[in-house]
């Protein structure tokens, strides 16, 4: 600024600086209300969609129980978190839930292996049609739904503790002197970081390890994989274990970021399926891309743009409405419309999944 200031007359300088500040304010507001929330929501959806897509790739059906699997894993984590909190164990600035997460994953693994043993294995042996699996998974959905509500109740549960913000809106304003604040919640930071680590681990596992390779082989061509001596039951078991991990992490991150309420997990099913299908069912890379596509569309379409637009356009053009394309009550409709468009235009998804 100072260097350029010499080139301008004082009047021009004020105008120019105001405009630049406005633009900065607009960018900050945009990051605060759109980019950061959409990033963390996208990461949560991506983790959920990865679970759906893995089940689809290996077991070849759409698992309607995935939302409630997430709820179950998150519930175990919540209970263990409460236990730790009552013992006075904490992670300092980080949420105690991170410490409880491994227990949640273990609980979820036990649950999924048990359902596979009791429910799905029978139909696998029969080589039942995929639609039968879907119906059965709906049955499992409602059992899990009932179980979770029975244990923890249908209400909102809080289990977040530790530092709330990495940067709070006020600190940001004080540091930068801007009018708009930028809040970066701890949960958002944890979500994005965890998602990156989990995805990196997953891809390393799928591409580098023997078990991972056998999973991909089984997913690509079942008969060929069987001929090469891959044990299908082992592949299925490992898949359930990975899915339990992914589902629990996604469920806990979502619960930390928003709040834990059993019914919201059932409603997450639609955006998660939309993410998986947009990316191409059965394709892990697609699931991640799909998660972010859905999250960014949902947030941008339901965000009231008034603030950002007011900063950017000249004063007399400032909008007097909220500039909101769709009320937040219809955020489900966003995933749905994207889903319909993908089904109409490119049913295999952006990354060419296996299903048509």
């Amino acid at each position: 600024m100072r260097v350029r200031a010499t080139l301008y007359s004082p009047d021009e300088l004020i105008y120019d600086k105001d405009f630049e500040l406005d633009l900065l304010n607009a960018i900050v507001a945009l990051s605060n209300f759109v980019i950061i929330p959409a990033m963390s929501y996208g990461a949560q959806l991506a983790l959920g969609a990865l679970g759906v897509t893995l089940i689809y790739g290996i077991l070849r059906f759409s698992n309607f129980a995935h939302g409630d699997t997430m709820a179950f894993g998150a519930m175990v984590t919540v209970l263990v978190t409460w236990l730790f909190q009552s013992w006075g164990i904490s992670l300092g600035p980080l949420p105690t839930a991170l410490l409880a997460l491994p227990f949640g994953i273990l609980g979820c693994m036990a649950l999924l292996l048990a359902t596979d043993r009791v429910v799905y294995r029978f139909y696998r042996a029969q080589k039942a049609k995929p639609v039968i699996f879907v119906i059965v998974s709906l049955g499992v959905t409602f059992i899990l739904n009932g179980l979770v509500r029975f244990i923890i109740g249908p209400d909102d549960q809080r289990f977040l503790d530790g530092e709330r913000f990495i940067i709070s809106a006020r600190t940001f304003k004080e540091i930068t002197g801007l009018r708009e604040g930028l809040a970066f919640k701890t949960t958002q930071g944890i979500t994005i970081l965890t998602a990156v680590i989990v995805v990196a681990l997953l891809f390393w596992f799928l591409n580098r390890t023997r078990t991972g390779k056998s999973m991909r082989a089984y997913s690509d061509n079942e008969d060929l994989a069987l001929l090469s001596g891959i044990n299908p039951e082992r592949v299925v078991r490992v898949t359930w274990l990975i899915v339990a991990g992914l589902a629990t992490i996604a469920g806990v991150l979502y619960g930390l970021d928003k709040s834990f309420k059993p019914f919201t997990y059932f409603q997450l099913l639609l955006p998660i399926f939309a993410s998986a299908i947009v990316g191409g069912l059965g394709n892990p890379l697609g699931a991640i891309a799909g998660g972010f596509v859905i999250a960014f569309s949902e947030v941008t379409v339901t965000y009231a743009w008034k603030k950002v637009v007011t900063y950017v356009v000249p004063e007399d053009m400032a909008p007097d409405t909220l500039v909101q394309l769709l009320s937040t009550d219809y955020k489900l409709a966003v995933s749905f419309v994207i889903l319909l468009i993908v089904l109409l235009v490119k049913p295999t998804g952006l990354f060419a999944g296996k299903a048509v």
Partner: protein
Amino acid sequence: MNSAMKNTLLFAAVFAMIPVIAYYQGWNAALFVLNMGLISAIMALGVNLQWGFAGLFNVGIMGFVALGGLAAVLVGMPATPGAWQAGGFGILGALLMGAATIVVAITTARHMRRGWLRSLAVLAILIIGFLLYRGVFDPSVEAVEAIEPALTGYLGGLGLPVILAWPVGGLFAAGAAWIIGKTALGLRSDYLAIATLGIAEIIIAILKNEDWLSRGVKNVVGVPRPVPYEIDLQNNAGFVDRAAGFGIDAVTASTIYVKLLYCGLFAFVLVLLLWMAQQALNSPWGRMMRAIRDNEVAAEAMGKDVTARHLQVFILGSAICGIAGAMLTTLDGQLTPGTYQPLRFTFLIWVMVIVGGSGNNLGAVLGGMLIYLMWDKGESIGLEVMEWITVGMPDGSALKAHLIESAAHMRLLTIGVLLLLVLRFSPRGLIPEK
């Protein structure tokens, strides 16, 4: 024992439950369960058409039922005075403009050559169309919702006899089913399930949030009836005399009389639809449907248009659910969007079809009546069971309170377990397909 005798016995057993309920809780409660059972049987008939005949998996029954309920309001309720002048025509115009935008966008996409220019043109049309639509829509909605929001604040209906809403509800549901079927049929079977799940949630979201249409969560009460009101009967000297002749007091007599009239109407619709479904099942069309279900590839090789037939049967089945939804709202006398739960209106219907016997219309009807009975009485039984389990625990213990409080959620669990058990051990249901 031959199958006809077995079926008769099964139906007799279910109907015998009605006097049992009457004995414990009075005829009013018994007839209520019977009426709801009849409506459930109609829904099950519709789902059986889709699943039993064609193997289509519809997870959005709730949405089609709710559309039927909306039809009851839009047809039966009187128009709100001044609402149409204030903004009704604006809303209608905006909706037409929205539809026109989509049509123009699609024709442009069809007629232009593939490339970035086409994408740009379609996008521009959609954006301009959307802005115009919002420009007309928003002020009109505001105007309509400003009219006595505590009492009306919505457009109201056409003020026609509410019976007309039943076929209209079917048409509404058929329209929604056409959109879904056009997109998701012909792809993998899972996609239909996901798409129907989505449309159901969105229909409920619309009913809850579009106050100008359905008053949202403020509910529409006082939907007109096709039968007389109890209070009028009680003031009718002739009716009171006849009731006295039977030895019942006028209040009880009037409530039972009204429920019997409903029962007659519902039974008529059920028998009509059942007859039609049976005719369809035994016609060449029905045989073709089952052939497609059992082997799509072979049917396609024989020159059958599988996707078109699926679309047809999907629309028909959804329409039946819509009819049942309109009947339900008529019986309730109110539209309460908050009460549409996937468990009650999607999943329970599935259990009815599968327990009754998918592919068999009589089975669907039996399942509908039986499962509704169990559902209705399950709540109190669940509570009693839980009280019996916790009887040894000390009063006031946290666990006992928690268990009794959670007894309501046991229904979710029980129904899920029931479905899995039937699917596993008796996949053909009580009255199997012939």
